[in-house]
């Protein structure tokens, strides 16, 4: 067989080595994407061109001559399999290396060395791509041995190769990022590769049987072994498919980080105070991620095990989500700091008392003065967001949320939101909103329906009629038309704010300077918050356990309706990787939490490409 291998290698070097150069060159050049790259197309061309080696043999009459040499059919088949398998695996290596380079580049803020291993979804993607090509390879070779290098054989693989390239590229682009549901199934890549190897083994056996033209010992023995291998391959493939569908159905456990403890407000206050000192002197977006993360780690922050762009404070009460900026991926593009325990409950309050809080802050106040005031009033922002608004203005926004059990004239708690915008140095804007109150509310169409029933109806219809597809990628006009078709009408006071027929849902559209939709926010006016009389940690966890990452959005919406967990806010915007993300926020007021008094609690469920990608519970 050495002679045959030597011949195959010589021919490969002279006729097909250029394809390998192409695959490597393209893989390395496109490696910054870190995802399925054009190397997939290169691998497809490589596999599809295998039949050309048979064409060369037939054209030179080598196919007939090599049967006169002292070699067995087993050796002739094995030589082809070895050389083409080596070719294939070198191409796979190019794809894997380009992926790794992509990951290194993605985390280049950490000085170009691995911070974490390649995320699990890349292993799955890699395994699936290898498996797809291995199956194609396994099918192609026996056909080549049967029909040799005829033009018919060669031409038949052109459409198959094209189909394979298109299928794999589009399928994996669609799946891109949605394979986190399988990240718990660590054995899946190994299972997939094992099935591919077994299929290749069966293919080899079949080729030997085809190549053997006499009634030799190979035919009988190999037939049995080939059948056994095919059975094993089918079994492995079935187990793999079963594991996939099981994962898709059940998803995996909530991925919301390990810090679930509810430490005291004091701890959070200390930690946020420290954060102000470290980071709120100037805006952080546009600065290097590496420097920011180093400082975080020095301050005791810890990276989440599953989401490498999320950090938690020591107590776990502060979560920081770092978004990268494109095209240079080592700078901060967006920051989102969320604090647990932040919503302040007031035993009793008036609208005026809320307003006083807002009046404490004025435009032109420095950040340092702002933080002093926060400490004085003993308020903690529930969210600090740094982002680029309208495509050009960089801003930091402190959001505060307050609730009260009783508000004058009302029987249920009301949520009050205060937002303070700064440019990193001074306050530029202060806004406050009262939730659940709207002036000039229309009269309900069905007087027998209670306000809550109306709100539930309108939110349910929003879920089914508006949230049935992605809206952020539509033009504003299309979005507005869709709302109008649902009976929404434009607010008389605010531009791009629409109210449902009975006024219980408001939808605001935010566009950028090019009139593309940037954010869609739908807010429900139930008139009261979802209220739980008393609850423990476990009771609260059970609420979010009804949903799992990987669950389809349709199922999520059905469950929200079934469990009476209709969202208070639904937001659609673009995530850090520019894919549309829809967030469902369900807010609760807990009357007596572990015997410790009232507590606000919210569950935020993020979806993308029709599936749940994240669940946060605070």
């Amino acid at each position: 067989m050495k002679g045959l291998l030597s011949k195959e290698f010589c021919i490969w070097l002279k006729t097909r080595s250029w394809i390998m150069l192409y695959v490597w060159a393209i893989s390395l050049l496109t490696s910054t994407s870190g995802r399925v790259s054009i190397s997939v197309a290169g691998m497809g061309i490589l596999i599809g061109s295998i039949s050309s080696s048979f064409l060369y043999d037939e054209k030179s009459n080598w196919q007939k001559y090599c049967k006169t040499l002292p070699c067995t059919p087993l050796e002739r088949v094995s030589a082809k399999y070895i050389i083409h398998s080596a070719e294939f695996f070198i191409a796979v290596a190019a794809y894997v290396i380009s992926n790794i380079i992509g990951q290194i580049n993605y985390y280049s803020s950490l000085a170009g060395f691995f911070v974490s291993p390649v995320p699990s979804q890349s292993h799955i993607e890699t395994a699936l791509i290898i498996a797809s090509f291995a199956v194609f390879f396994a099918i192609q070779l026996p056909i080549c041995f049967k029909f040799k290098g005829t033009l018919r054989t060669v031409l038949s693989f052109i459409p198959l190769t094209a189909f394979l390239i298109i299928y794999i590229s589009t399928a994996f682009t669609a799946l891109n990022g949605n394979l986190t549901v399988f990240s718990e199934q660590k054995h899946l890549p190994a299972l997939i590769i094992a099935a591919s190897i077994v299929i290749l083994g069966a293919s080899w056996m079949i080729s030997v049987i085809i190549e053997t033209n006499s009634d030799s010992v190979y035919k009988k023995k190999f037939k049995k072994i080939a059948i056994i291998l095919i059975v094993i391959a089918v079994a492995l493939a079935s187990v793999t498919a079963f594991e996939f569908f099981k994962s898709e159905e059940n998803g995996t456990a909530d991925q919301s980080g390990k810090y679930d403890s509810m430490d005291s407000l004091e701890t959070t206050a200390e930690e946020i105070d420290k954060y102000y000192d470290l980071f709120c002197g100037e805006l952080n977006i546009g600065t290097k991620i590496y420097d920011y993360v180093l400082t975080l780690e020095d301050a005791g922050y810890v990276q989440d095990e599953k989401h490498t762009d999320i950090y938690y404070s020591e107590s776990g009460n502060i979560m920081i989500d770092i978004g990268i900026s494109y095209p240079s991926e080592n700078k901060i593009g967006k920051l989102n700091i969320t604090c647990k325990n932040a919503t302040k409950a007031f035993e009793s309050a008036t609208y005026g008392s809320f307003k006083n809080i807002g009046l404490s802050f004025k435009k032109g106040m420095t950040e340092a003065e702002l933080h002093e005031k926060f400490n004085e009033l003993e308020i903690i922002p529930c969210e600090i967001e740094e982002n680029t608004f309208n495509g050009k203005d960089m801003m930091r926004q402190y959001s505060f949320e307050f609730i009260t059990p009783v508000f004058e004239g009302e029987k249920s708690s009301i949520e009050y939101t205060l937002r303070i915008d700064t440019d990193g140095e001074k306050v530029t804007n202060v806004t406050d909103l009262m939730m659940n109150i709207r002036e000039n509310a229309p009269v309900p169409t069905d007087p027998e329906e209670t306000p809550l029933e109306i709100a539930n109806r309108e939110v349910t219809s929003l879920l089914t009629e508006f949230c049935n597809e992605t809206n952020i990628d539509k033009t504003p006009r299309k979005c507005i038309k869709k709302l109008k078709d649902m009976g929404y009408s434009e607010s008389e006071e605010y531009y791009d704010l629409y109210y449902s027929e009975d006024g219980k849902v408001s939808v605001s559209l935010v566009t950028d300077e090019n009139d593309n939709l940037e954010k869609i926010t739908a807010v429900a006016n139930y008139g009261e918050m979802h209220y739980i009389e008393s609850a423990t940690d476990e009771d609260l966890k059970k609420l979010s356990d009804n949903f799992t990452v990987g669950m389809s959005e349709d199922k999520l919406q059905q469950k929200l309706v079934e469990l009476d967990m209709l969202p208070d806010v639904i937001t659609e915007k673009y995530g850090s990787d520019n894919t549309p993300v829809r967030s469902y926020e369900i807010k609760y007021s807990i009357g007596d939490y572990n015997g410790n008094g009232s507590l606000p609690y919210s569950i935020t469920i993020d979806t993308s490409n029709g599936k749940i990608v994240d669940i946060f519970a605070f």
Partner: protein
Amino acid sequence: MNAIEIKNLCKSYGSFRLENVDLTLPCGCIMGLIGENGAGKSTTINLLLDIIKKDSGEIRVFDKEMTADAKEIKNDIGVVLDEPCFPEQLKGLQINKIMKKTYKNWNEETFFSLLKRFDIDEKKKFKSLSKGMKMKMSIAVALSHDAKLLILDEPTSGLDPVIRDEIVDIFYEFTRNPTNSILISSHIVSDLEKLCDYIAFIHKGKVILCDEKDRLLEKYCVIHCTAEELSQFSDDAVMHKKESPYGVEAIVERYAADGFETNPVGIEELFVAVVKEAK
């Protein structure tokens, strides 16, 4: 021991059928397989070399069953096919490397000395050689691994007379070793006449005549006579006749030709006669 023993070999290809072919080539001898185009020469050789599967019959080479011990046997067989058979991109140097790893007894020195003798540049690609050079390259490979048996399927087909003569001389040299045997198929009878000890005629898948060349040439002769005179010969004694206004030219068995002026018969004439009679 016989180099080749074929008994009752049968193979069907649609309308063509190789029927009950029996051939025996003793060691140290040369057998020529003569037949017109499509007679079954190449099919016989392909079956002999286990390139195609036989329907029935037995093939033994060096007293070993071919299908069972093919790999072992093929180390001692040198093969030259009717068409050039190396990949176009390969050079002599690369062919040497490949064959060195293929044959147990590959002799590099012999190979390169043959290339030199044939005036073939070892660094030239196979595709850039002329047809005659390509055939010589194939022969060089066949002769460079201490083969005991050469199987040649129309090796001189399409070559000019000078090269054909050269190649026949090379085969002649090969047979100087008394243990070496050759099975050569061709429809160029003149080449075989010079070289062969045994001749087998194949026509439409059947071996119609197989005997020692000298015995065949001794057995038959050509006479010129009248039709009346020829009618006195028994049917068995007359192999073939050609009538013309000037008389009859007939190929007859020598024993029956007493009293007539006889001329020696050539293998080619014999072959044509046998084929015409078979028709």
